């Protein structure tokens, strides 16, 4: 596959804002692995068989034997290494620089976590092996449980859900089971219009109806009118705290009271725990059930989209309903998996959760110990620093104090025809990954920025410099911003054509 060499745009176009952080560099081209395939090549050689070979057709019956896997690649080891290494160089990553993505908490993924996850004796264990031969594994899970309970101020925990969304579902199912036991599971769950999309999606799978409630003029929950909304039909309120605007819901205790008085429960989406760990505890301010995203606050790697883990911490009233199995310490130092829990909501996944991810989260927590507060403080300092430096430059629709993230809007730049997506794409030329543009829905044209504690002052300053330069370009040279990025291997891709006539696999 040859690529046509295009004339590069004038360097002055790219450096109109004097880009400090990044510079163009040759990266290797690479096609699809199938395009390198040729018969007779292979990347793995197996040790010889030490038992008699068998004839598949006689063993299985001819009807059960397949023809060869048509189109499956045939390449050598070196080609596999080159192929994926080249592909990797086309990605941005935390290891390269900041991801200011609001609500994603893109912090450093400590390498020791990778090392310990791969230890023989941990990576090798089978979930059905005897409990006596799994004490090390179970102790890791038990220790993590204790840490999560201490951090959140809750009473019990399940480590089984493998993502935040799955945690949400498990939490909602536990709420349902609890209310059902009281005589009426109720029908609706209240969700603020600032919520992450998984919230309403999870509610529906839990068999509840979504009732959207509008945030007030300050972008917070309309506590004054909450009473009206919490009818006998309402099972729970699903709240993110701090909100997706990065602002703490100061009246949270009152919110919890209103719900509890009417027999409803308070679910907290723990995606923003990075603003709270070590500083305050959701269990203290009235939360009944909450999921954590270990791939956010607890540093487990995003890996291009996953894996994650979404443990759910609960107050005592919900403990009987935890999914099975539950990790228990039967006597000090002796651990087991308890599957005999008659009131449990059941199993949400085979085996017992993403052990490899849970292990990494424990390694992270052990590295900090009680000093975890410092990470939270640094995250909040970084966010407020960026806010202060960009306040005059971008519109701040909700000016309440920010914790770990800040949400601007593109209102000022819109006047020149430049929107948040354009600014985000131009940020790529400046050597950064874009911030979050897609939500919260209550801010049209949002720029949701979360720097995390992993960013140095230098990286923060570079980000401020880049954003200011782009704001300037939006005014003086909007076309440059609207057609960004200019420095990447591909420009903006035609997503419309891709969606109209999807091509979702290679064919020979």
């Amino acid at each position, binding site marked *: 596959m040859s690529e046509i060499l295009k004339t590069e745009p004038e360097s002055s176009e790219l450096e109109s804002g004097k880009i400090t952080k990044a510079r163009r560099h040759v990266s290797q081209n690479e096609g699809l692995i199938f395009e390198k395939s040729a018969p007779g090549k292979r990347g793995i050689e197996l040790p010889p068989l030490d038992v008699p070979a068998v004839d598949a057709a006689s063993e299985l019956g001819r*009807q059960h034997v397949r023809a060869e896997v048509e189109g499956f690649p045939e390449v050598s080891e070196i080609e596999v290494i080159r192929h994926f290494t080249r592909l*990797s160089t086309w990605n941005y990553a935390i290891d390269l620089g900041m991801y200011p993505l609001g609500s994603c908490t893109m912090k450093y993924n400590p390498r020791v976590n990778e090392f310990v996850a791969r230890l023989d004796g941990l990576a090798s264990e089978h979930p059905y092996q005897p409990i006596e031969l799994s004490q090390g594994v179970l102790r890791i899970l038990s220790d993590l449980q204790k840490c999560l309970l201490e951090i959140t101020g809750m009473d019990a925990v399940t480590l089984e859900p493998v993502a935040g969304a799955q945690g949400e579902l498990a939490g909602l199912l536990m709420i349902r089971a609890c209310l059902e036991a009281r005589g009426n599971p109720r029908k609706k769950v209240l969700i603020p219009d600032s919520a992450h999309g998984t919230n309403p999606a999870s509610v529906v799978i839990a068999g509840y109806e979504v009732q959207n409630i509008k945030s007030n003029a300050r972008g917070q929950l309309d506590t004054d009118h909450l009473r009206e909304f919490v009818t006998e039909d309402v099972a729970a309120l699903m709240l993110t705290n701090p909100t997706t605007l990065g602002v703490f819901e100061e009246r949270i205790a009152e919110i919890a009271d209103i719900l509890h008085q009417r027999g409803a429960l308070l679910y907290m989406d723990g995606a923003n725990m990075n603003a709270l760990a070590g500083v305050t505890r959701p269990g203290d301010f009235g939360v009944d059930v909450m999921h954590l995203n270990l791939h956010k606050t607890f540093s487990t790697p995003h890996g291009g989209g996953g*894996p994650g883990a979404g443990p759910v911490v609960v107050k005592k009233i919900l403990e009987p309903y935890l999914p099975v199995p539950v990790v228990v310490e039967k006597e000090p130092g002796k651990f087991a998996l308890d599957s005999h829990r008659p009131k449990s909501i059941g199993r949400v996944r085979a085996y017992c959760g993403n052990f490899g991810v849970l292990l990494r989260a424990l390694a992270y927590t052990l590295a900090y110990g009680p000093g975890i507060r410092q990470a939270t403080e640094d995250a909040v300092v970084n966010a407020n620093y960026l806010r202060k430096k960009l306040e005059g430059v971008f519109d701040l629709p909700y000016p309440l104090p920010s914790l770990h993230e800040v949400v601007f809007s593109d209102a000022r730049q819109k006047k020149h025809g430049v929107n948040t997506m354009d600014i985000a794409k131009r940020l790529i030329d400046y050597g950064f990954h874009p911030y979050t543009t897609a939500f919260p829905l209550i801010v049209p044209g949002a720029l949701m920025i979360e720097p995390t504690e992993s960013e140095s002052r230098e990286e923060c300053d570079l980000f401020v410099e880049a954003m200011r330069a782009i704001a300037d370009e939006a005014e003086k040279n909007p076309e440059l911003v609207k057609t960004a990025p200019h420095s990447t291997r591909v420009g903006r891709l035609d997503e419309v054509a891709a969606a109209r006539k999807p091509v979702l696999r290679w064919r020979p």
Partner: protein
Amino acid sequence: MRYLPKSPSERRGMLDAIGVATVEDLFKTIPEKFRLRDPLKLPGPLSETEIIQYFQARASENSRGYTSFLGAGVYNHLRSVVTDALIQRGEFLTSYTPYQAEISQGTLEAIFEFQTLICQLTGQEVANASMYDGSTALTEAVLMAERLTSRHTVLIARTVHPEYRQVLQTYAKHLGITIREIGFTASGQVDRAALTSESFNDVAAVVVQSPNFFGVIEEIPELAEVAHAGGALLVDGITEAVSLGIVRPPAEADIVAMECQSLGVAPSYGGPYVGVIATRDKFVRQLPGRLAGQAFDAEGRRGFVLTLATREQHIRREKATSNICTNEALFALAATIHMTLLGKAGLRELAEQNLAKARFARTELEKIPGVRRAFSGPIFNEFVLEFPRSIKLINRWLLDDKIIGPLAIGTAYPDLSKRGLFCVTETMPRAEIERLVASIKRILETTGSGESKS
């Protein structure tokens, strides 16, 4: 603290720039009574050395030194060091979901390759970028069938992994889905006659697994016919992806939900794994999960983008095909690398080695007096044998020989007591198989009188 890149003076400088006296000032919006005064009571802080020591200690408290014959959805297969070397690259490990296509082309192209490889393996037309695991993929496949047919009953074979069925139960309970189970025959396969005699009124899907929990391969084309005749879809779950190296792919199934752990992912006590759903092109709009599609930029350069995103939660919210957001991307990448390393010939040879090893083990075990094959159907690398004594008892004795014996399936199948599910893959040395046989033989001889070990 080594993960925090700020010096005390930099912190001070930033607080000054913000305009506050102390960092406490930044937390003023948290009501005072909820602000912690004391540090949390957590273990640590530990240095890197101490962290490693802690986990090495834990690693020594598990099954090291034992030989395991367990399978049941989690398989010991070879893994090349090349895979880890690649997925540990920071640009793969620490990168985000590829929503910004221009700087995520590495991830997107790899996803496109994953989707292609899964289609090639399963004989289906389109596959997604991964689900959480096989059990949740199967559940989501069922929900997909429900949406496609607008019917609300599911007929599921008892030969589907018990924990997979439990997961479906948890999800289905509140979605108005009725589940009916279909039994199995002496061959160990789902009872097709019983299935055919079921009422298909309101049946969205017939759900099977192949090879099934007993290791037996199901008759997919015939099952598809029965399902389709009743207006239902056939959903096939696959827990052992390596089987597709030699076993005919379920091309007649409408939706395939597969676990890819066998393809380069460590057992890791149950996760993280890699689920995937593959199906026909015509069902793509009901397919949950991310999809990478080919696209072109204004200069005509080919790239890849996440596409058909309107199915997903971040756009469709309560009307989404699923609530899935985070998936298993890094390990789907591991599976992709593994599959490309194996290649056509390697995968075939690997599957053939599994066939050979399992057969050898079963043959030798069946020579032991009192040990019988439980099912007559064709197997890949797992099989069930019936013993004259309880499996739990036999396994207790086997532990003395540092062998982790077969899974006792009597707990999940009360009608199948004294039966053990063995898995023998290419990683099992012949000598260990022979050692297993010798141990069991000895155990049965010495406990033949009915005495149990105290």
